[in-house]
């Protein structure tokens, strides 16, 4: 049968779409600077700067159509604040509320600070413009901090999103809410660093009556994800909480399609996690196994599958079995193992898997990783790890047991633990693991003011550093553990000792 020609109208449509796409990609002007706005805060026309489609004009028009006739008279004290002062004040006040509690006076003051912004969506848009243009950006002291005004700007956008979507708010306006959400979405690819992660956090955490707002905008997120292919994972991230308000059946319906996204581990992992919490977790588990066992699956996708299993699969015994059976591929994923026992019933699952292997002295690496996850044990379960530290036939498993015990949040450092460590080291535990365990003891002892114990632990570390019969790597491990307890000069001297 001859191939059917596409109709002429379809071709014309395709050409038009390609032309529009090319125009957006090649002729998009840089983000609008603040000077593009009038002094009254009216935003400029940014249709060409950020949006993908002509819908932008509609979104922006909705934002510009401001009418809040029923707004109460502004607080005279706060009415005259400029935009930057207002945003900084919002950031400061929120910090105060989170630190000292939400008194009625503080909440009222916050509402008064927010009110002119919520009543004027164009001003919120101006805030977004300035964030995108980097107007309030200065060199941050470290990657974890944000300028006060920038942070206040992100928070104002958050309150705008939830207020516009909240039917109980007097600023409720679904069109404004939609316009703001979509405009922020389309601006995300122009941002980076802490500002980007903070703004993504605002989108992810915004919810009304327990339903995340991202659930209302899945079509837009998918469209942008397809358009900005180089920022695909950024948009995939927004699906992280999408399943939170879904029924198991809804999760199955929504997420199944993303299992084929093997080039985007983030969305594949999110999809798998949701399907494991869906109506048919056994089916999802068998899919996960098949995909993991496929030799063409990349290490990144395997990592995402393991994380999805640890986070999504309810039965910790099945997760432990999965990890142990595939030890050659999962041994390089310590994060997943370390949190396995945190699941409900997780310690029992880990202990059962360990006992099964220990009985036949099999698979020392799997035993070691199972013991690593035991650090989340309760105080009574810690005894079990102490037994393993002396009874397991493998020195690396015994060394791991010492590390698990001494790093456990529920473990209190005692002199006996240091004595046990010395005898375990004499019994063959490798020096690097002994050094890390001693470092754990020294840090915990220092924190509780147990000076003698701290000194005993650091003396042991110094012995390891000085012992020329030990491998250099182990001596360096001990040296690193000593760093918090020595002056720079003392530490340098020890380091030079190893070099000799």
């Amino acid at each position, binding site marked *: 049968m001859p191939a059917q020609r596409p109709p002429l109208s379809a071709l014309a449509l395709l050409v038009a779409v390609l032309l529009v796409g090319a125009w957006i990609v090649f002729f998009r002007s840089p983000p609008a600077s603040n000077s593009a706005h009038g002094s009254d805060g009216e935003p400029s026309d940014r249709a060409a700067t950020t949006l993908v489609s002509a819908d932008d004009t509609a979104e922006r028009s909705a934002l510009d159509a401001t009418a809040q006739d029923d707004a109460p008279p502004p607080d005279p004290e706060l009415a005259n604040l400029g935009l930057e002062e207002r945003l*900084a004040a919002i*950031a*400061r006040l*929120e*910090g105060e*509320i*989170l*630190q000292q*509690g*939400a008194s009625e006076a503080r*909440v009222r003051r*916050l*509402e008064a600070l927010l009110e002119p912004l919520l009543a004027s969506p164009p001003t919120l848009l101006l805030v977004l413009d300035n964030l995108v243009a980097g107007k309030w950006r*200065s060199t941050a*002291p470290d990657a*974890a*901090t*944000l*300028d*006060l005004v920038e*942070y206040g700007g992100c*928070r104002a956008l*958050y*309150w705008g999103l*939830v*207020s516009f979507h*909240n039917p*109980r*708010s*007097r600023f409720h306006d679904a069109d404004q809410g939609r316009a703001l959400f979509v405009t922020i979405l389309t601006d995300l690819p122009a941002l980076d660093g802490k500002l980007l992660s903070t703004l993504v956090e605002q989108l992810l*955490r915004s919810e009304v009556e327990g339903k995340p707002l991202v659930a209302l905008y899945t079509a837009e997120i998918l469209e942008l994800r397809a358009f900005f292919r180089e920022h695909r994972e950024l948009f995939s991230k927004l699906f992280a909480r999408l399943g939170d308000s879904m029924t198991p059946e809804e999760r199955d319906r929504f997420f199944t399609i993303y299992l084929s996204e093997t080039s985007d581990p983030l969305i594949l992992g999110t999809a798998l996690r949701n399907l494991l919490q869906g109506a048919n977790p056994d089916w999802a588990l068998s899919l996960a196994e098949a995909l993991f066992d496929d030799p063409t699956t990349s*290490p990144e996708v395997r990592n995402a599958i393991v994380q999805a299993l640890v986070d999504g699969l309810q039965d910790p015994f099945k997760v432990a079995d999965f990890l142990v059976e595939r030890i050659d591929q999962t041994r*390089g994923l*310590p*994060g997943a*193992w*370390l*949190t396995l026992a*945190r699941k409900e019933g997780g310690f029992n699952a880990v202990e059962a898997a360990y006992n099964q292997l220990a009985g036949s002295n099999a698979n020392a690496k799997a035993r*070691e*990783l199972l013991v*690593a996850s035991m*650090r989340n044990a309760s105080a009574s379960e810690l005894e079990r790890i102490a037994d393993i530290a002396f009874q397991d036939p493998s020195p690396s498993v015994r060394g*791991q047991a010492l*590390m*698990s015990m*001494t*790093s456990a*949040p529920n473990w209190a450092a005692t002199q006996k633990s240091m004595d046990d460590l010395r005898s375990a080291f004499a019994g063959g535990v490798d020096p*690097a*693991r002994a050094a*890390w*365990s001693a*470092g*754990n003891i020294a840090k*915990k002892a220092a*924190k509780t003011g147990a000076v003698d114990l701290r000194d005993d632990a650091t003396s042991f570390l110094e012995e390891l550093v000085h012992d020329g019969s030990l*491998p250099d*790597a182990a001596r360096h491990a001990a040296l690193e*553990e000593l760093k918090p307890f020595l002056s720079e000069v003392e530490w340098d001297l020890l380091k030079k000792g190893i070099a000799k």
Partner: protein
Amino acid sequence: MKLSLVSWIALVGTLASALHAHADVGTGTAELRGCPHKQATLVDSEWTEQGATQVCAKGIKLADGSTWSPTCPENEVIVPAHGECQGESHQGTLCVPTGVLNVQVGECTCDPIVHVGQWVAAGCTCTNFTSAGTIENFTTKPCDV
């Protein structure tokens, strides 16, 4: 065309030396027979959040019911940069283990937003990092050493 015995000997000798030369070019030396021709892949250090997300107890609730509660992961895990044998090809080398490196885990707690002058730090602090586990480290070695 017929070849004399001398010609045959000369031809075989030439072929043998050509094959020997080819073997040297292809694998370096005779010791490289059995060399897997693989190298270690360097994996960058990684900071990941682990465990369920804690919604911090202290939040903000406006009169219209709109709320904000900061969140925190339970743990932060630091896996150091290390080498892995992922099957990457490299002529004349093999991927070998060099021991283990320590993996650190910090406990995260909700912390009010901290203002330091004009800066804001996140409302979540991960501290008390301890060495909780290990990761194997691999490196690349020449096959003929």
